[in-house]
């Protein structure tokens, strides 16, 4: 009863009249629990250790560079007139964009009843939190005097006797990213409570039981609790859906509300949101493709999941490409010489290489997903997702740096060059991200166990009805 009669390992083909299984092989509830819980119960494979040590080194470098920055000043970056928003802001927007996939998968796909989300939402949400942590670091250290960063908060200051300026997009950004980070965190945690209870109940050692016992808050699986939990999950999904769309919209306001040619465009909010989902799914695939191999989760994160994500990448990548072309069209059609020059400068000026890296990686490379062979071959897929990550970083670089490099006064035109600290901090932020993700794999349930079981139950029920219906015919 509790097993799924699906023996074939390819669930990317839709059979008319039948629900395509989302979990492959002869799976029981116990086998799903075992497959996921053992990841944190058994010792980690060698590749985990290698990754973790490298990532930890990157994290320590990141910390050291931040100390260097705080002790020396923001002059250690390449930010120089006229490009005052250099790599730190590029990295911020890059990481915030990546942080969009998790909550999108948990919230929007939940509201659309996309059951395939259950296998990937936990890892995607974790990735979201970690990406937002990386993102939040950069504006935090970008304020120059880090110890004054709390001035961003609206509190009745004893030293300033004044309040933040609520008509500024930069302050909206503080609220948007802060709300997104905290709501994503609590959403992630709430979703994890039943699985933490599973970990608690499987614990063999006293310490594990104590820690997971505290984290799971005494979850018993009572149906009344489940009922309220599901209601809370729906409400959170309904709240998080507009939130996801608002965050990158507000981030785009940082640019769009200014008067700078290349920034001051109304297309920015939808264009940023599409780019964020694009880059977020790119990063989810980058992480999940190795993870499902390393932890032997191929039957839970199935080819159909990867196939669906590839299609989303194709769709959002094409949207981003449309946005690029629309920007150019508007620059020409508006007959605004400043706008037009800025875009010609982007594509054919000294930053032409960045523009065409962006265009190739973001628009052209995902087009291979029109072909099923690319949506089936995980190696090719992974390479494309790496291109997507690179392309989306360069998109933010192109938007931020090229618009600033050409000021209104030709006398202040300049060319941005990063310093070694800039490069080290970008690498170091990946170290922070990867360290957190490794720890997540090590200690927390990487797949939403209870949700996968719920979907299995529904599918078994549907199969049951299907079988009985055909029998009666």
């Amino acid at each position, binding site marked *: 009863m509790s097993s799924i009669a699906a023996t074939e390992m390819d669930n990317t083909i839709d059979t008319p009249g039948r629900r395509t299984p989302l979990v492959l092989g002869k799976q029981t509830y116990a086998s799903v629990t075992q497959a996921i819980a053992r990841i944190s119960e058994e010792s980690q494979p060698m590749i985990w250790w290698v990754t973790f040590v490298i990532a930890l080194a990157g994290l320590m470098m990141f910390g050291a560079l931040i100390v260097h920055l705080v002790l020396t000043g923001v002059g250690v970056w390449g930010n120089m007139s006229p490009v005052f928003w250099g790599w730190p802001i590029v990295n911020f927007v890059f990481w915030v964009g990546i942080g969009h996939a998790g909550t999108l998968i948990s919230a929007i796909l939940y509201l659309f009843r996309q059951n395939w989300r259950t296998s990937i939402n936990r890892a995607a949400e974790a990735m979201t939190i970690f990406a937002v942590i990386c993102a939040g670091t950069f504006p935090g250290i970008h304020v120059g005097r880090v110890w004054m960063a709390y001035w961003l908060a609206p509190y009745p200051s004893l030293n300033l006797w004044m309040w933040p300026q609520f008509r*500024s997009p930069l302050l909206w950004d503080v609220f948007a990213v802060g709300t997104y980070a905290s709501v994503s965190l609590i959403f992630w945690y709430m979703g994890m409570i039943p699985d933490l209870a599973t970990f608690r109940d499987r614990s063999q050692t006293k310490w594990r039981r104590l820690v997971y016992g505290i984290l799971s*808050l005494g979850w018993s*699986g009572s149906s*009344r609790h489940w009922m309220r939990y599901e209601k809370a999950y729906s409400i959170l999904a309904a709240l*998080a859906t507009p939130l996801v769309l608002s965050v990158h919209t507000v981030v785009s306001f940082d640019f769009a509300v200014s008067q700078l040619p290349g920034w001051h465009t109304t297309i920015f909010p939808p264009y940023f949101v599409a780019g964020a989902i694009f880059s977020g799914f790119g990063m989810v695939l980058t992480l999940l493709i190795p993870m499902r191999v390393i932890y032997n989760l191929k039957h839970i994160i199935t080819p159909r999941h990867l196939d669906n994500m590839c299609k989303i990448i194709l769709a959002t990548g094409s949207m981003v490409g449309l946005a690029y072309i629309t920007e150019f069209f508007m620059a020409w059609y508006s007959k605004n010489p400043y706008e037009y020059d800025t875009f010609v400068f982007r594509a054919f000026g000294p930053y032409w290489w960045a523009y065409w890296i962006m265009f190739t990686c973001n628009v052209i490379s995902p087009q291979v997903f029109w072909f099923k062979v690319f949506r089936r071959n995980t190696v090719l897929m992974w390479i494309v997702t790496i291109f997507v990550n690179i392309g989306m970083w360069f998109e933010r670089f192109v938007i931020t740096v090229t618009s600033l490099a050409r000021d209104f006064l030709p006398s202040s035109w300049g060319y941005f060059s990063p310093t070694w600290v800039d490069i080290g901090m970008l690498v170091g932020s990946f170290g922070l991200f990867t360290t957190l993700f490794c720890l997540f794999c090590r200690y927390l349930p990487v797949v939403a166990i*209870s949700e996968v079981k719920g979907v299995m139950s529904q599918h078994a029920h549907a199969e049951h009805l299907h079988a009985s219906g055909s029998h009666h015919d």
Partner: protein
Amino acid sequence: MSEHQPKPQKVRPPRSFGWTAEYDDEHQLLEAARRVREAGYTKIDAFTPFPVHGIDTALGIRRTKLPWFSLIAGMTGTTVALLLQIWTNAIDYPYIISGKPYISLPAFIPVTFELTVLFAAFMTVFAMLGLNGLPKFSNPVFTNPKFDRASDDRFFLWVDSRDQYFNADKVRELLEATGALAVEEVREDDSPTQVPKAIYAAIAALILITLIPGAIVLNMRNSKSPYPRWHVFFDMDFQPIRKAQQPTTIFADGRVQRPPVPGTVARGELGPSDPFVLGYDPDAVAANLPAQGPSSRLVSYQQDGDEQPPAPVEPGAREQPPAPEEPPAPTPAAPDQPASSEPEAPPQQPAAATASQERPVSAEESSDGAAEQTSATAVAATDDDAVGDEEAPGAVATGDAGGEPNYAWLQTFPLEVTAELIQQGRREFEQNCAVCHGLAGYGDGLVARRAAELAQGYWLPPTSLHEQRIVEQPVGRLYYTITHGKGKMAPYADALTPTERWAIVAYIRVLQRSQNARSEDVPPGVDVAASANSDNVR
């Protein structure tokens, strides 16, 4: 609890909480739940590893009030955000940004939205936990080791012993009849309920430790200390610089403040002793400077109030009447003779004269301090300047002589008056002066007319330039008025160069002449009647 308990059969130390039935399939659980409910039990529950579809109706679980909590929290968030933004940006600390109104709702939308979501989301999670009674770390069902599989792959049905129809035997029979894998009684948890004292001690110690920094800060804030403020971050409060009056080792003289480099000309001191710049002859003033006490000078400075007091004059220099060796250069000039057009280098001044350069000695002080000092100055001051008003530079009253006072005003233009100069003066006059004094100089400029219209009591009307006393003023006096202002009139020294000021004076002279022309002024051969339509002629 005890009132619903059935009559005690055996004395068992742990109380009975209820019975569980274990299933390995959610459909069996659903079926069993329906049967138990049909049997009339209401205090029943199910423990499942995932939310089982249809269990709510099978168990008769009512809908939750949770959405109301979210709604109210969301509305609270909206209200808080709007009040916060309106209070901070429009009431407590109002300032205009980008020309937006103080309460600019469109700009407040993003933060309002974010706080709405923030409040609603947190309330949803905490209300869910609260309604569920979580966190609850001690639960009797956890005493059964089999119950560990309730979060894995087993489904438990639960009948509470507090149910009004509860009967242990009947319940067990009913549950066993549903095909349960096992039917078991859940008893009170007999594990020790006492929290170890060490945990209390540890928590108390932790709280105390976390209070220490705050206590130190509070103590520092409320106590006095002879030492400077303790800075966590120095910012720019301490820098390797010296303040005024502090010693230094960098310079040989040990002084931080550096004297001006030799040859420095301070602001406002460039060529002030030139009559071209001053409008009067400083040498003549110096020659007539009365010997007077410092106190009276001080009083007069205070009366003036708008000029900085000059450097104190050396006592010795003040005692002896200054005697210029040579007569001042530019004056006197014959009335018809055009003066030199170029300003010359400032002549050397006696020490006492230097003091009076900035602000000439006033008539009052002259009269009380040095009334009898009648000096036959070289200044060719004409006697028709019978202006008894204030602050006439170098006005050396003849006092008891009863005659007209002598002035050091320049009587003639120190530059050549040409048609171009007068045209320039007209331009400058119409730009700078006419707004108050009127295009023709009658004190009926737009500002004056507007002020008269508003009938403001404190408005002092601009002087008509055709008043007799103005007409009689020497050009130097007019120039001085333009330079330093008078009454409500602002000084124009910063706005106009000396040449421009002289040009205006020249134009004023033209205006005065044109408005006060006599028939003798008409050159012979000109037909007055033909030009009679010129109404300006009075």
